[in-house]
């Protein structure tokens, strides 16, 4: 057993050193000498578990289990862009190394057909295969396979319940890893069979240090204030932050510097001045003015959900209205948000919200 563990460890170390991860190899020059461009989000995806930023508890547990070359069934949940998919991909790479990775890991996400029939056939079949404890080169490796069910919250209830028994019966040869944004959408019997890990929203300093590192490596000139703007617009979502950064650096070309306005523009954030103007319109108690202002919002192409998001921060901080009024407005916001998610018309919903705000600021004080 000791030898096995040791071997397992060596193998993981080795895989760390010489694993030509597909994403990084894509950055190399292809045969015809053309430089292939890889999106930064793939290029800087953590290659091993230790690289995953900020999720210390999860990483500690995973590292322990990697040392033991064993994993429980896992359930990762948390907001987008916090490293859930990256973590499990890195962990399974470390476990199996690049060659075995293909045979041992089945990755299913919402883009694959994932109804009950697939769970019954594809997943079950894959789970039933037994896995050897040695690699082709004679080195030992963990004797199980991993099935990654990404975006599991979009699986139907039926498909989830079909998983239940499979998970238990095949526990000898297969580990499941479910990834989702909302743990509440996963049925209870599944959650109780998994070790649950919550991924935290990334803290700003971690994000900014990563972004700076990327900027250094890519040779992008960027000021600290611009990084702050990126942080502010990305709301703790690493992928969004990196995406924004890359888009900005592409937009301004090789030698241009990135400005704050550009970041705001790319991320679709509504400028503070515009928001001020809207709120001032509300206090004027003129329905016609308001109507015009909302029409303008729609015409400018701002997303209502974005407006709602930013407006919420403003309303909370407003000083000239009482707490009770704020709560009335916030309640309306919640209703409007739900309606928007259901696909209701933006103009009408915004009108409803803003007329509430107008009534509260002008008549109730």
């Amino acid at each position, binding site marked *: 057993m000791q030898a096995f563990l040791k071997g397992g460890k060596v193998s993981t170390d080795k895989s760390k050193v010489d694993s030509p991860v597909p994403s990084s190899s894509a950055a190399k020059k292809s045969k015809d000498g053309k430089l292939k461009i890889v999106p930064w989000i793939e290029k800087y995806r953590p290659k091993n578990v230790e690289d995953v930023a900020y999720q210390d508890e999860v990483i500690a547990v995973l590292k322990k289990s990697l040392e033991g070359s064993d994993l429980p069934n896992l359930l990762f949940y948390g907001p987008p862009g916090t490293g859930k998919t990256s973590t499990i991909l890195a962990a399974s790479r470390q476990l199996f190394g690049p060659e075995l990775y293909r045979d041992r890991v089945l990755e299913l996400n919402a883009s694959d057909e994932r109804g009950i029939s697939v769970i019954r056939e594809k997943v079950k079949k894959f789970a039933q295969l037994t896995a050897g404890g040695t690699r082709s080169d004679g080195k030992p490796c963990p004797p199980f396979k991993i099935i990654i069910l990404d975006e599991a919250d979009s699986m139907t209830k039926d498909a989830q319940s079909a998983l239940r028994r499979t998970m238990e019966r095949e526990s000898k040869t297969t580990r499941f890893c479910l990834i989702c944004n909302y743990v509440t959408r996963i049925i209870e019997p599944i959650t109780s069979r998994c070790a649950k890990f919550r991924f935290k929203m990334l803290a700003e300093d971690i994000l900014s240090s990563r972004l700076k590192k990327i900027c250094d490596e890519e040779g992008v000139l960027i000021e600290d204030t611009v990084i702050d703007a990126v942080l502010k617009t990305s709301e703790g979502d690493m992928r969004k932050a990196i995406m924004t950064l890359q888009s900005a650096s592409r937009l301004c070309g090789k030698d241009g510097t990135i400005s704050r306005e550009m970041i705001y523009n790319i991320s679709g954030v509504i400028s503070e001045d515009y928001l001020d103007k809207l709120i001032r319109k509300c206090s004027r108690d003129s329905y016609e003015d308001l109507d015009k202002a909302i029409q303008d919002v729609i015409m400018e192409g701002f997303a209502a959900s*974005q407006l709602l998001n930013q407006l919420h921060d403003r309303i909370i901080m407003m000083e000239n209205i009482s707490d009770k009024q704020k709560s009335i407005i916030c309640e309306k916001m919640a209703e409007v948000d739900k309606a928007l998610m259901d696909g209701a018309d933006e103009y009408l*919903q915004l009108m409803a919200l803003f007329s509430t705000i107008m009534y509260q600021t002008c008549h109730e004080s």
Partner: protein
Amino acid sequence: MSLWVDKYRPVSLAKLDYHKDQSAHLKKLVEGGDFPHLLVYGPSGAGKKTRIMCTLRELYGPGVEKLRIEQCQFTTPSNKKLEISTISSNYHIEVNPSDVGHNDRIVIQELIKNVAQVNQLDTTQQKNFKVVVLTEVDRLTKEAQHALRRTMEKYMSTCRIILCCNSTSKVIPAIRSRCLGLRVAAPSIAEISQILITVCKKEGLTLPHEMAVKVAEKSGRNLRRALLMCEACRVQQYPFNIDKEISEPDWEIYLRETATMIAQQQSPKRLLEVRARLYELLTHCIPPDIIMKGLLKDLLAVCDGQLKAEVVQCAAFYEHRLQQGQKAIYHLEAFVAKFMAIYKRFLEEGIADIF
């Protein structure tokens, strides 16, 4: 002979008439020979599609304009056959997945996989990726949007996706965070009128400035509509007569009459008449949310201050239900009935106050 809208559609980024900064940015973006997934959003008639086509042309050269229409077939797991028409060139494929209703997920899964899994043969002369343009993304079901998520990352090396929609509210955050968002705002009245005048000049016609402004205002900052209206005016009468009313679509007039009827009298009998008219509009394929907005706009004109707020709240409420429900007529009628009740109460209170 083609319509002015198509005839004078700009074909290259340099020729776009407004949002020059954005065009410059797009140009820089494409110059590198590569770009991220794009999410183009803005109101209709703002030039989203035009910008997408210009970008593609910049990227691949004039070859993208050789379009062909193809029918694609897909089979659902329950063995139902779906057919969807796609517009494609050698370099890109354009599809509107919401055409197939709630089965759009299948289309997204299959189509993008088909396109993305084929590598270009000769990468020295061609770009090593193709472009998939998906229109009306905001009408995609949640499942279809989820299906897009990982696909977008997975096939990044062979395929770029350009999403086109009116509003990003209905696009899930996971997709938004994977794309570079491009907001295309509607052109201002001044910009539209300027374009109208230039187009007319190219046609060899003279368009008075006041007339251009009038058309632009009538169009609701929708350039396509403005051009169509302008052409319609030209067909009706030339040289342009400034005093002449710009003709509106029949259904708008019909809708306004309906609103007047509601405001005139509030009784069950009138409700029945209004219902017949609403049915008439629906059978002519006027979308229910447009009917609702049209009614609201005209009805608000007869209300004052506080009443307006109340009516707007109900309109928002019933429109939300309309989106969730099956049959539009119930909700439209409910709105009309509710309005009648509110308005009648208001009138009676007004009378009571007098005595």
